[in-house]
């Protein structure tokens, strides 16, 4: 289910230089299917589990072709940890696509 934290993570991720798009990140995919069957999806794309010191954030992104992956990692992790409640979160960033001469849709 969407949470305010996930919405904020989506918002900051979309504005990180080098990120073309933010995709659904929930795994396993059975979780996505269950959400849709309950009429809850797709909602937010990022996934936040736990809170405080045990919070874990998973973000799935598409990179622009000229992006530097390490810079994107550092920038995105920094912005996520600037969100109240996620200061100590573990951040997992998954590059699900590298955009290659394709216009973005969002």
């Amino acid at each position, binding site marked *: 289910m969407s949470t305010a934290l996930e919405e904020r993570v989506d918002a900051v991720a979309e504005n990180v230089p080098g990120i073309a*798009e*933010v*995709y*659904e990140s929930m795994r396993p*995919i*059975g979780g*996505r*299917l269950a959400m*849709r*069957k309950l009429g809850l*999806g*797709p909602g937010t*794309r990022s996934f936040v589990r736990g809170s405080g010191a045990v919070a874990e954030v998973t973000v*799935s992104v*598409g*990179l622009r072709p000229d992006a530097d*992956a*390490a810079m994107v*990692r*550092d920038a995105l*992790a920094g912005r996520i940890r600037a969100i109240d409640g996620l200061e*100590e*979160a*573990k*951040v*997992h*960033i*998954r*590059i*699900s*696509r*590298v955009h*290659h*001469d*394709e216009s973005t*849709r*969002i």
Partner: protein
Amino acid sequence: MAVTMNENITDGLPEDDIGGSGYTLDDLSAYLDAGRTPYDPVIEHNAECRSVLASLEQVGRWSRELLAGEAETAPVEAAGAGWMDGVLGAIAREVRSGRDIAYPGPDLRTTLSITEGAVRSLIRATGDEVPGVLVGRSRIDGPLDAPGEPVTVTVTISVRFGYALQDASDAVRTSIAETLARHTPLAIAAIDVVVDDIRDSGDEELGPLASRVADAGGDAR
């Protein structure tokens, strides 16, 4: 045109589901044909669906080029349907996210990885940009979960008649090597390019070339 989610979803994923979306390759093709309208966030927010759409668009461009060159001869789909089906099937298989390939990093609280599917899509997009070339299949062999361990990439391509096979193979290999070095943490030991088909402007089937290329010592490694 609205796309209806596969009914089999109630029993889990359809066998040919793309990225847990509930949509199949045919569904995505129909969505593309409809101009990606009405906008479907399930498709548009799914990385694997988006990779398929991008590949389908590339294949569509390539097909239109062929058709333009043979407007007064046989239609491409008549002669090349089987081969094209093979390419489309490969696209659907390759976009599956597969294994995560980790980038090395100094911060244990932050992990960065790229999916195997993203790498394969990158290989396809890069190879397709080489003039006269369309990528058929790609494979990554090696321990992707062991950073720094060498892996081998094998790419099967079709080359349009009139293009030098060796030049096309070299260009594909060079482009893919540069792209993978720029975008992935993979240690590439080799990129094998196999030309398994030649197609001319009339899309005449010239037959699998793998054996001929091998006989000529032209399997460009």
